[in-house]
């Protein structure tokens, strides 16, 4: 028989406000095995933990139940407390009487009643707990960063700085991501390329970092410390190690009319291309859908021109298999498609553009060499209308937009408006907004400068319709503050499109078994206390894949993710989860049902010798669980027809005891 101690936490008034904690402690005193029961304001505090430690020593407790907040919050804390007092940490059970009781029920009587039942269930379970010892597994001291934008770059640099090898997988031919496409950055107006490209060069020159550009993650197996990853290196038809990036092939390629992705299709690039001058790796890539040689077997000009002999039309996709200890997701964001926003005439007029397209138009390396022009006729626009929240903060239009605030649009629109007025003082600039949100260091000052110093006209209200008429764009809008309808003849309309997670994030989350929210942003292990870790051990989050964020925030999160990775890789061994399946060999009949459902292939069969009652021996085939591979899902326990397979920590008997305690 166990000697159980029950500790009921008040959590200040969080629990005690709706649950009579003293009554709970009193009621649980009479449960089987309970020899000690008490309540205290904050069980997780040092004083609270001391109460537990003292009680374990004083009453020789063999198991404890803490009635407190969610086990997802403080199970680890109380396990440590138990271990410090010499009790096996897995002899601790938590009754969740905060998140699942006091916070959701308003009435003291019902709250107390339910808390007592939850406590009884935990006591019933702990009575059947057995001490467990976690196994150990080695750590592969190499990290994988998925995504080569500023988030991935910063994470990789920080991890490499601590001396661990890092691989970056980037699906584009070059690293750099969205930041490489930007012109200036708010609120300091640094040139984006000037602060990003040195970092890209650092990555290229760092001995610890390998870049797999034009590559995608194909398959992820294994677990924290020991991930097995397959990376598909797409054929770029250019030998990466030989190409010098001279650009001769790009100049001579006859297939010149292909939309240039880097400039968002606003100009053309040849079939063989280098995305931009500072690309890393600076290696040409052949677009197989555009190249005449690859499509029809005619041409071959680039191969003849290439002095280094780097062109290889026979190159095939290559699969690289590598082991990693930790994986960082840095897949970033994309502006949403404007296809569904007919009211802004994005599809009808070339002069309605998105903010990212505006960014390319004002960039010296962009399609217009930095000259602000109308894409339709190349003339200078005299009246520019910026529309904010296009697809952000949409309630009614959730079909085409997003419910959340995209966070960065207010600031980049202020930047665009300010820079336009600075460079072309003859331009009239209007910004239509719902709210201007500028909570960041020096952000509000920046926005106010746009209004006060640069004379940008901010109008509270949404644009209802944009109609192309002649070479003008008729903008109909409402001014909410003066309650007037406005008609503006604009030359250029710039839409601050909402941002969404990159499309590659969803399949990646499935591969990593990392969870996502309803908008396909990765969820963090705890929104406040573990913001850069995914709930899946060994998977970390960096940048906008976790939620909209600007560059300073992305860089700080990237550093935080790197420090978590370093903390993991610095360990030689990881303690595993001891709550894994085990088979009772005497009951197992070797039917293979469990093996078939195991998602990890953790179950194998061994021939074992059994002594029979008549003293003969018999060899039988029985299941055997590999403790290093089993993750403890329990699928096998249900598949087992003889009941031989059970899960430690969540045993059949334990769960049935809980059911019994709940159902009276």
């Amino acid at each position, binding site marked *: 028989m166990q000697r159980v101690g029950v500790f009921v936490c008040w959590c200040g008034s969080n629990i005690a406000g709706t649950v009579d904690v003293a009554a709970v402690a009193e009621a649980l005193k009479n449960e089987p095995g309970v020899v000690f029961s008490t309540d205290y304001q904050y069980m997780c505090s040092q004083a609270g933990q001391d109460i537990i430690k003292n009680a374990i020593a004083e009453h020789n407790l063999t198991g404890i139940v803490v009635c407190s907040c*969610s*086990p*997802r*919050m403080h199970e680890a804390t109380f396990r440590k407390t138990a271990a410090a007092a010499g009790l096996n940490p897995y002899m601790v059970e938590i009754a*969740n009487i*905060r*998140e*699942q*009781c006091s*916070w*959701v*029920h*308003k*009435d003291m009587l*019902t*709250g107390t*009643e*339910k808390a007592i*039942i*939850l406590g009884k*269930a935990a006591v019933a379970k702990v009575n059947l707990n057995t001490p467990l010892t976690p196994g150990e597994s080695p750590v592969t001291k190499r990290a994988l960063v998925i995504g080569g934008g500023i988030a991935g770059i910063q994470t990789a640099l920080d991890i490499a700085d601590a001396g661990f090898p890092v691989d970056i997988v980037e699906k584009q031919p070059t690293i750099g991501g969205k930041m490489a496409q930007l012109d200036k950055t708010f609120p300091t107006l640094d040139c984006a390329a000037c602060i990003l490209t040195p970092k890209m060069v650092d990555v290229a020159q760092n001995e610890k970092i390998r870049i797999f550009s034009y590559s995608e993650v194909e398959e992820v197996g294994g677990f924290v410390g020991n991930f097995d990853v397959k990376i598909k290196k797409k054929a770029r038809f250019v030998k990466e190690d030989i190409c010098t990036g001279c650009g001769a092939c790009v100049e001579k390629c006859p297939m010149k009319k292909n939309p240039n992705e880097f400039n968002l299709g606003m100009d053309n690039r040849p079939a063989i291309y280098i995305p931009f001058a500072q690309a890393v790796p600076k290696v040409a890539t052949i677009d197989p859908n555009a190249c005449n040689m690859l499509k029809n077997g005619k041409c071959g000009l680039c191969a003849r021109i290439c002095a280094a002999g780097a062109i290889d039309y026979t190159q095939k996709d290559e699969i690289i298999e590598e082991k990693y200890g930790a994986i960082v997701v840095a897949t970033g964001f994309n502006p949403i498609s404007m296809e569904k926003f007919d009211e802004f005439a994005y599809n009808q007029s070339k002069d309605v553009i998105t903010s990212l397209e505006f960014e390319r138009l004002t960039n010296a390396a962009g399609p217009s060499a930095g000259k602000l022009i109308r894409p339709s006729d190349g003339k200078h626009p005299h009246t520019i209308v910026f529309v904010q929240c296009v697809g952000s903060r949409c309630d009614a239009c959730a079909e085409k937009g997003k419910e959340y605030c995209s966070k960065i649009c207010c600031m980049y629109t202020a930047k665009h408006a300010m820079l336009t007025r600075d460079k072309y003082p003859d331009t009239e600039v209007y910004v239509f907004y719902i709210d201007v949100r500028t909570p960041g260091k020096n952000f509000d000052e920046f926005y106010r400068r746009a209004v006060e110093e640069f004379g940008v006209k901010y109008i509270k209200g949404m644009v209802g319709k944009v109609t192309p008429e002649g070479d003008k764009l008729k903008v109909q809008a409402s001014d909410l503050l003066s309650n007037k309808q406005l008609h503006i003849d604009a030359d250029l309309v710039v839409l601050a499109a909402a941002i969404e997670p990159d499309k590659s994030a969803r399949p990646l*989350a*499935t591969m990593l*078994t990392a*969870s*996502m*929210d*309803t908008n396909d942003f990765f*969820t963090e292990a705890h929104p406040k206390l573990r913001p850069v870790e995914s*709930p*899946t051990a060994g998977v970390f989050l960096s940048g906008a894949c976790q939620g909209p964020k600007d560059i300073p925030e992305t860089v700080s999160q990237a550093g935080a993710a790197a420090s978590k990775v370093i903390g993991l890789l610095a360990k030689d061994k990881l303690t595993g989860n001891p*709550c894994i399946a085990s088979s009772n060999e005497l009951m197992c009949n070797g039917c293979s049902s469990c093996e078939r*459902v195991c*998602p*990890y292939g953790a179950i194998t069969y061994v021939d074992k010798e059994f002594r029979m009652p008549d003293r003969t021996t018999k060899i039988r085939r029985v299941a055997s669980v590999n403790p290093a591979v089993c*993750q*403890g*899902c*329990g*699928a096998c*326990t*249900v*598949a087992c027809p003889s009941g031989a397979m059970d*899960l430690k920590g*969540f045993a*059949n008997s334990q*769960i*049935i005891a*809980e*059911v*019994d305690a*709940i*159902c*009276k």
Partner: protein
Amino acid sequence: MQVKEYKPLIVAFCCNWCSYAGADLAGNNRLSYPADVKIIRVPCSCRVNPMFILRAFQRGADGVIICGCHPGDCHYTSGNYYTRRRMAALFSMLDFLGIEKERTRVEWVSAAEGAKFAATMNEFAETVASLGENKRLEDLRCKR
């Protein structure tokens, strides 16, 4: 005749990674649902043995709900698919035995869906309450 107020007893099995966290989020956001719902934490929805459900009904539960990660999002890659198939078979057999289909349910609730968790529990508790007490499978020998 005095009629005792009927309160249904609902056992909810929640997977540790999605639905249990969803229930925690419902708590964090103070989204209330009936106290008749009692949650049991399991590592994965596929850990729920049909025996547990039978046991709950024998012991007088009026409804059983199993919550797991959305299809494709299982922490253990495929556990919830097993749940879906096993429970489809079990629930139709229970229906045959006289435990109405409305008393049993499998629902996908992610860690981000606190509101969905509370709404599901409210709706399920109401449905079960409208069916009344479960007498069909109750084992009187189990009555304390």
